[in-house]
C-alpha cells in the first residue's frame, strides 16, 4: 500500500471560538470509498473541509495525499477536489466559461470538459446557458462534471445526493465507482445512507466533532441499479448489529458476486468474519 490518502491524528480544529473538530482520528487508504455520517452539526462537513485544507489544524496532525496540512497545504490542494453544499459557479458566466475558468485556475487541461459534461448529462445545449438559469440539480451535476474533468486524487463530496434526481444519483454512483476503480479516494458526507452505503466500502460515524465509530460495509458490485450490498458492518456507537440484510427487498433478485470472504478480504480493516456471518470490527 503506498502512503495512505488521509491520516488524521487527534486533530482539533477551532473556528471562531468553537471546536468544530475535537480530536478526530482517521486513516483512509488510497482507493477507498468512505461514507461519513452523523447527526446534524456533528462535524461531517467540517471533517471534509479540514481534509481540503480549508479549516485550520489547531491541534494534532493531519496529512492528506502525503502533504502535511500545516506546512505543505498548497501541495495537497493540487490533489484534492471538493464538492461543497453550494456548487462553485458564477451565475453570470455560462457553464462552459465557468468550467474553463476553474480548470485553468487548477492548471488542468480544459479539453476534458466536454467528455465530463456528457457523462453527467449536462452537455450540449446546456453548455452555453448561464449558470444562474440552471436548476439546483443541474448545477450540482456541473460541479460533479468539474470533478470528473479534473480527476483529482482525493474526492471530498459533501452531501452529493442533495437535489439530484434518480438519474443523477445513478450517474453519481457510476462516477464514484469509476473514480475509486481508477485509484482515487472518495469521502462522502451524507445523510442519505441507502445511496451512500451502496457506494462505500466503509462507514465512519462522527458525532460532537469526534469520530465515534468506524465500521466496514461489505459492499459488493455497484454497477447497475440492481447491485446489492450485504451489510456486515457494525454501526459503531449504536450497538445495533446490522446483520445480513440487503438494502432493498426489490433488489434481491441480483446475485451477490463473490463469496463473503472474498469481498471482506480486500477491506482494509481486516474484518473477522465469524461463523454465524456476523462480522465484528
Amino acid at each position, binding site marked *: 500500500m503506498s502512503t495512505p490518502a488521509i491520516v488524521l491524528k487527534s486533530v482539533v480544529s477551532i473556528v471562531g471560538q468553537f471546536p468544530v473538530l475535537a480530536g478526530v482520528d482517521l486513516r483512509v487508504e488510497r482507493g477507498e470509498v468512505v461514507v461519513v455520517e452523523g447527526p446534524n452539526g456533528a462535524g461531517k462537513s467540517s471533517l471534509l473541509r479540514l481534509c481540503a485544507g480549508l479549516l485550520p489544524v489547531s491541534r494534532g496532525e493531519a496529512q492528506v495525499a502525503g502533504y502535511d496540512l500545516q506546512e505543505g497545504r*498548497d501541495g495537497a490542494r493540487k490533489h484534492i477536489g471538493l464538492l461543497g453544499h453550494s456548487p462553485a459557479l*458564477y451565475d453570470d458566466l455560462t457553464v462552459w466559461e465557468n468550467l474553463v475558468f476553474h480548470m485553468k485556475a487548477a492548471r488542468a487541461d480544459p479539453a476534458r470538459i466536454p467528455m465530463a459534461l456528457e457523462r453527467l448529462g449536462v452537455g450540449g445545449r446546456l453548455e452555453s446557458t448561464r449558470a444562474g438559469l440552471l436548476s439546483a440539480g443541474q448545477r450540482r451535476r456541473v460541479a460533479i462534471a468539474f470533478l470528473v474533468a479534473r480527476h483529482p486524487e482525493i474526492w471530498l463530496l459533501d452531501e452529493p445526493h442533495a437535489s439530484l434526481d434518480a438519474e443523477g444519483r445513478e450517474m453519481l454512483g457510476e462516477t464514484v465507482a469509476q473514480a475509486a476503480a481508477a485509484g482515487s479516494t472518495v469521502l462522502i458526507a451524507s445523510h442519505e445512507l441507502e445511496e451512500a452505503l451502496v457506494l462505500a466500502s466503509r462507514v465512519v460515524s462522527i458525532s460532537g466533532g469526534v469520530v465515534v465509530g468506524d465500521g466496514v460495509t461489505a459492499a459488493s458490485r455497484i454497477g447497475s441499479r440492481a447491485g446489492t450490498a450485504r451489510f456486515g458492518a457494525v454501526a459503531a456507537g449504536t450497538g445495533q448489529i446490522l446483520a445480513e440484510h440487503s438494502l432493498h427487498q426489490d433488489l434481491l433478485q441480483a446475485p451477490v458476486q463473490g463469496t463473503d470472504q472474498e469481498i471482506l478480504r480486500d477491506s482494509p480493516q481486516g474484518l473477522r468474519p465469524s461463523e454465524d456471518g456476523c462480522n465484528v470490527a
Partner: protein
Amino acid sequence: MLRDTLLVAGKDLRIELRSRVVINQMAPFALLVLVLFAFALGPDRNPLITAAPGLFWMAVLFSTMFAVQRSFSLESAEGLHDSMVLAGIDPAGFFAGKLLAIGCELFALEVLVTSGIIVLYGAHVKSPAELLVSGILGTVGLAAAGTIYGALVSGMRLRETLLPLLFLPVASPVLIAGTRAWQIGLQGNSSASSPWLGLLGAFAALYICAGIVLYGPMEDMK
C-alpha cells in the same frame, strides 16, 4: 503569476460585461454625485469650477468603494471562495487580477465623470496631460488600496461599514494630490504638477507592492 492575473481579471471583466453592474448602476451613480454637488454648491459657475477637481476625486473615491464591494461580492458564495483557494491560484495573481479589473472599471467611470464635469460644469481643460496621468496613477493607487481592504474585510460580518472606515483615511493622500494635480490640469501651469504626480505614483507603487507581499498571508487566513 501573470497567468492567474489575466485569468482572474478576464473572469471579472467578463462577468461585468454580462451583468453590466458598472454600466447600469455605477455610471449613473457617478453622474448623480456630480449633480448633487452642483445642488450643494449652487447653480452659478465659478464655485463649481474651482471645486471641480475635488468633486471629481470624491466621485472617484465613492465609485472605488462600490467597485471593490461589488468585485468581492462575486466570490462571497461559500463554494466559490473554497474552489478559488483549492485551485491553488497564486494569491498575488488573484490580487493583481482583481486590481486590474477594478482599475479598468474605475478608469471607464473616470472618463465618464470627466466628460460630465466638462459638460455640466463647463470647465475647460488647459493641459489634459495632467488629468490623464493623475487619473491613471490615482486610479491604480485607489484600486490597489481598495483591493487590499476589500480582501481584508471580505467574509466579515459588518464589512459594508468597515470598508469605508478603513479605506477612506488611507486614500486621503490620493484625494489631496489628485485634486491638486487636477487643478493644475485645468489651469494649465503644468510645471508645478510634478510633486503631486510623484506623490500619486509613490502611493500607487507602495500599495501595489504591499498588496503582492501581504496578499499571501491574507488569503490563507480565510
